[in-house]
């Protein structure tokens, strides 16, 4: 059965991501672009690349729980320090009646990072099993989470700004908590993982290069 499409690799070529030049492969191993010297991944590196993305994703997932359960910041007010967690904040907002705000925080800070990880995991799984049926869905979601990525650090910035602004010694002070670090780790790891994921993995057949 002829392949559905032809890639550069299948023709024995390698496209340089940096300068766009098409190099002729002399080896299946890693080589360098003849024009700009950038590394051209070896053909079998795909599996390893996917492992890296999986690893990043799992690491992000590991940090997801402390990010939600540990205090993202500690508000010290008149000698009383009130550590607040993301989940606790959402519950507090809901209890005091600001259910709109509670929903925004819940969606932006809790659900979306989780959704991103789930989507990335799904896309990785699709790229592994090569179920064609899911490929268009997976690639659409992938683009969506890549777009969302740029907003993900908003929470961290808010905490960073508050911590910088609210420093009045004993009267009131906000210190970032361990939760913020964990949250930043989740965001960064998810972003890097999304970045490292090549959408083409979704389309490649296992033996596209004819081996």
């Amino acid at each position, binding site marked *: 059965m002829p392949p559905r499409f032809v890639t550069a690799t299948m023709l024995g070529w390698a496209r340089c991501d940096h300068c766009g030049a098409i190099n*002729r492969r002399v080896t299946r*191993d890693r080589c360098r672009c003849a024009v700009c010297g950038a590394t051209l991944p*070896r053909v079998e590196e795909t599996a390893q690349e996917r*492992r890296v993305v999986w*690893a990043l994703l799992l690491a992000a997932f590991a940090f997801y*729980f*402390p990010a939600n*359960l*540990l205090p993202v910041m500690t508000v010290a007010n008149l000698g009383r320090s009130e550590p607040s967690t993301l989940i606790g904040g959402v519950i507090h907002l809901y209890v005091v009646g600001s259910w709109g705000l509670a929903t925004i925080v819940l969606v932006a800070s809790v659900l979306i990072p989780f959704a991103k990880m789930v989507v990335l995991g799904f896309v990785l799984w699709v790229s592994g099993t090569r179920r064609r049926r899911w490929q268009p869905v997976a690639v659409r979601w992938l683009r969506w989470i890549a777009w969302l990525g740029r907003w993900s650090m908003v929470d961290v910035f808010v905490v960073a700004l508050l911590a910088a602004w609210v420093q009045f010694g004993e009267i009131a002070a906000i210190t970032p908590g361990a939760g913020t670090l*964990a949250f930043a780790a989740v965001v960064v790891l998810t972003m890097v993982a999304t970045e490292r994921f090549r959408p083409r993995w979704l389309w490649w057949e296992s033996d596209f290069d004819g081996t």
Partner: protein
Amino acid sequence: MTEHENLLTQLPEAQPATPSGAGFARWAIWLLPITALVIAFWVGYQAWRDAGVTVSVRFPTAAGIEAGKTRVRYKEVEVGRVTAVTLDPALDQVVVTLSINRDVARHLRADARFWVVKPRVTARAVTGLETLLSGAYITFDPGKNGARQSHYQGLNEPPLVSAEGGGKRFVLTSRTVAPLEVGTPLYFRGLAVGEVVGAALDPEGTLRVSVFVRAPYDEQVRVGSRFWVQQAARVEIGGRGIVAEVASGLALLHGGIAFDWRPPWGDAAQAQEGHLFPLYANMQEAENPAPEFRLIFRLRLPEGVSGLYPRTPVFFSGFEVGQVLGVLPRFDERTERVSPEVWIEVWPERLDLPKEEARVQAIFAAWVKEGLRAQPKPMSLLTGQKMIDLVFVPRAAPAELVWEGGYPTFPALPAAFDEVARTVTQLATDLRDAPWKELVTELRDAAHGLRALLDAQDPRSAPRQLRSVLQRTDRLLAGLERAPQEVMSTLAQVRETLATLENLTASLAEDWGEQGVPRAQLQAVLQSTQRAARAVELLAEALARHPESLIRGKAR
């Protein structure tokens, strides 16, 4: 396009690069999620350890308790906080959810007790500014037995045992209001040895005060010990004269409870934990407590009487057997007069009567038939204080105990004592104006003269001086002929002594030139004179300090 298609045949050849990593490098990437997991678990474990154990406690009210703000403290160390305050389904209690540090919660037992500590601002101290800011907090006693529960019933007030390091709890009961609060100190002979740990009214309206006495002073609490309220300062002007009581030390600032034991108060055995003691209103009452068993009588006096107040004593055959409870005006429809209605209580135990109400009532009814009447009488003529005397009046108009509204009315006689009062007032003036000072001075002079005699100087002045003292004493005695027996007898003794001395010194002086005066004899004379001077001085002082002793005899 064709031009470019040709280019595909002349593609640049990729340059060799360093081969990709070996097996280890390929798998090393898994270290990233593993490390992340380890960190997450470690941080999570720490958070779990710090988050504390959730325990819910039921309280009757959530006053002062705020979710997220109220702290849980143990020995003044913060060990947790209130995470939620909710109502129980039946709406009759508040369920307070506490989060307590794990390592502290480990020590909670089934019999742990929780209570709310509210900040107190007392005369003693303002308990720390931070307490004012932080408000009430919850504290607990971890208990001793059983495993930790997740639900506890909170106490309405701090438990009786509030101190470690030993001591005993006792319960004081009082029918009157005592100005007490938790923390009011307990004094034993001026030393603060404990404090009030709780106070509550029982269903019968008796105030039950729980006190804690620290070791080793708890050994000083005997079965027969008496407790009384120690007010900062108390001055009472009554039939017994002026009674002033000033507390010592801290009690001077805010009062307290004092206790003591004296041999006549009974059992000297150490009181057991939880022993019940009556709490007396003051030291006088503690020393002479009103018995529990009492009869209440109503007296209808024919006319207004001043000087009758609550606690005015009631006497019977010279025994103090009761007190006035109150005096109310009563309008008589028939005579259109207002007359006082005096309520008195009588303690039959003071008369060694049986402790059976029916029998005692019968005895009193019989006595009334025999002529027992109540009569207001002067107690202290100087202060105008009165007493109610229960006296048998021979040939009294027949009367009976009349029961009205649940209480018997005791037949009363009109008060009559103005004549006596006048006499005694006059007497007091006489006594006050008597030349006490001069008398003492002259006696001293006489003593000096005798000393001179003893020192073998001019012996002739001594008898002369003594004679002048004697004359003055005679004049004094003549002026005080209405003085009470005691004053008279003291002065008479002085006079007698002086007379003897006069004779003695006179004869001694006569013999002076002829032979040596025996020193021992002179020594004795000198001492007698000095004693006489001292006796007069004491008498004068006593009269100045306790004028009422004129009427009632020597002050107790």
